[in-house]
């Protein structure tokens, strides 16, 4: 099945090169990218990544401006998580540059990156079993004044307040997802990397997460969002990068995505 998929993919990519100019146009007006003089908060340039000898990302370039939400969409195994981990400095078999606010992060350690203002919500949530809910929340340092206070966190996620003394991993799957999200908000990062934050959440909570993303976006935080839930992605994002087989195959504004949704759905299996 995936072989067939990849054939189709390369066909599509052939088409894309010819169509390229049109895409850039659609992108440009939705995107206050570096080309427009507004410095990108995050810019990833020609990033390639490997697991051992298997290459899973090929020359990926992505930017996120302050106050902007960009999504990475694509099938399972496309390399979305790997890209986030590379930005965080957790995946080390990489080539290419990642810069924050125009300065190259180079080989800086994950903790330095986090303190420089990158927050990450991993796909498996990364809740600590040996820490209580409250300790999980208290753990990361505050890196900016915009960090949420404990009151604010408990206000937005009352169930976490109720369970504050429970060991982190005794929470339900969805509660853990909330905890992971809340924890990163406690830092006040300027750039958030969210790996499928809506996964396993009840529709009500998904809506609340959407509100939160819009709220922090308004405060100028940049978000790079990995999402499978297209409806949700569309409701919060400005731009979308389509990833297939470790390559960016499309770069679309929100409207363009809406317009071509059915086509993309069938072809890319988003």
């Amino acid at each position, binding site marked *: 099945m995936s072989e067939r998929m990849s054939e189709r993919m390369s066909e599509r990519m052939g088409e894309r090169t010819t169509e390229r100019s049109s895409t850039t146009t659609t992108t440009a007006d939705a995107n206050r990218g570096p080309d427009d003089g507004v410095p990108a908060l995050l810019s990833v340039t020609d990033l390639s990544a490997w697991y051992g000898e298997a290459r899973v990302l090929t020359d990926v370039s992505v930017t996120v401006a302050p106050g902007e939400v960009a999504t990475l969409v694509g099938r399972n195994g496309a390399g979305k998580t790997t890209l986030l981990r590379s930005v965080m400095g957790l995946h080390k078999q990489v080539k290419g540059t990642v810069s924050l606010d125009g300065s190259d992060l180079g080989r800086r350690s994950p903790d330095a990156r986090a303190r420089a203002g990158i927050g990450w919500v991993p796909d498996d949530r990364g809740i*600590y079993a040996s820490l209580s809910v409250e300790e999980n929340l208290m753990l*990361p340092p505050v890196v900016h004044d915009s960090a949420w206070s404990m009151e604010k966190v408990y206000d937005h996620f009352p169930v976490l307040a109720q369970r504050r003394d429970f060991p982190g991993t005794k929470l339900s799957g969805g509660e853990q997802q909330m905890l992971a999200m809340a924890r990163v908000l406690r830092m006040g990062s300027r750039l958030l990397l969210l790996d499928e934050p809506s996964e396993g959440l009840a529709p009500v909570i998904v809506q609340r997460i959407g509100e939160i993303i819009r709220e922090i976006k308004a405060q100028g935080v940049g978000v790079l969002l990995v999402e499978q839930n297209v409806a949700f992605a569309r409701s919060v994002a400005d731009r979308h990068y389509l990833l297939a087989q470790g390559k960016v195959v499309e770069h679309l504004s929100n409207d363009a995505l809406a317009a071509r949704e059915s086509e993309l759905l069938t072809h890319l299996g988003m």
Partner: protein
Amino acid sequence: MSEFIQYTLQGLAAGGFYALSALGLAVIFGVLGVVNFSHGACYMLGAVIAAVLLAELSLGFWVALVVVPVIMFGFGVLMERLLVQWLLALDPLYNFLLTFGLTLILVEAVKLRYGVSGLPYEIPAGLGGQVTVGSVNLSVYAIFACVFSVVLCLAVGLLMTRTRIGMIVRAATEDPGRTRALGINVGRWVTPVFGFGIALAGLAGVLAAPTRAITAEMGSNFIIILFAVVVIGGLGSILGAVVAGFLVGLVEAYGVAYAPAYAQIVIFVLMAAVILVRPSGLFGREEVA
């Protein structure tokens, strides 16, 4: 009756010492998830260093009580940086094996340098003699050691549960990479805590010096008893280590009084019983599945 009181007091005195000795083991496990097999060897080093300080630099007990933990802290830091840290993310078994190897090395090194027969050490001035109340009497030193231990255990317990340190280090050991990604410089926290645990072992060694034979092997069997203590108390639980320390001290004293030859086996029977009823020890957290 007065005999019983006498035994009880002796059991408590020994218990305080067990608690302190097990404390470092519990701290290191509770925070780093490392079962430090070399804890006994570090305890031995503490006593040996105290003896050497006395013999070669004429630095007495009170100085040793401060200096030895500092030295052992340094030793612990080295140990963590050079050896232990590479295995933290793996199964705890690896560090268990590593510290087992380290134990062999430390014991042998001390034997080579200071011989096998042991080193002399005196009871510090002012702590000799007895306190007698009615027909019950206890050595002043035993009382001192017990009180000292209890105070220290309390302090450490507060430090680990009431401050951020314990939390950060627990997170760091569960998943160092991810903890870094949360902006925490893992190395800055894990190492000192490990050093601290080792320093506690050294301190227990100093405390033991005036009453025990100071030989390279002094920790070899002691560590086994300490394991029993922490298993009974619940691995990694500081409160557990303290309570189990006293429990073991008492059980041992009563054992000696009423079934002398079985005093030591009684500890292991107690342990088996505890595991049967509460697999994670008296105060242990449930195992993380």
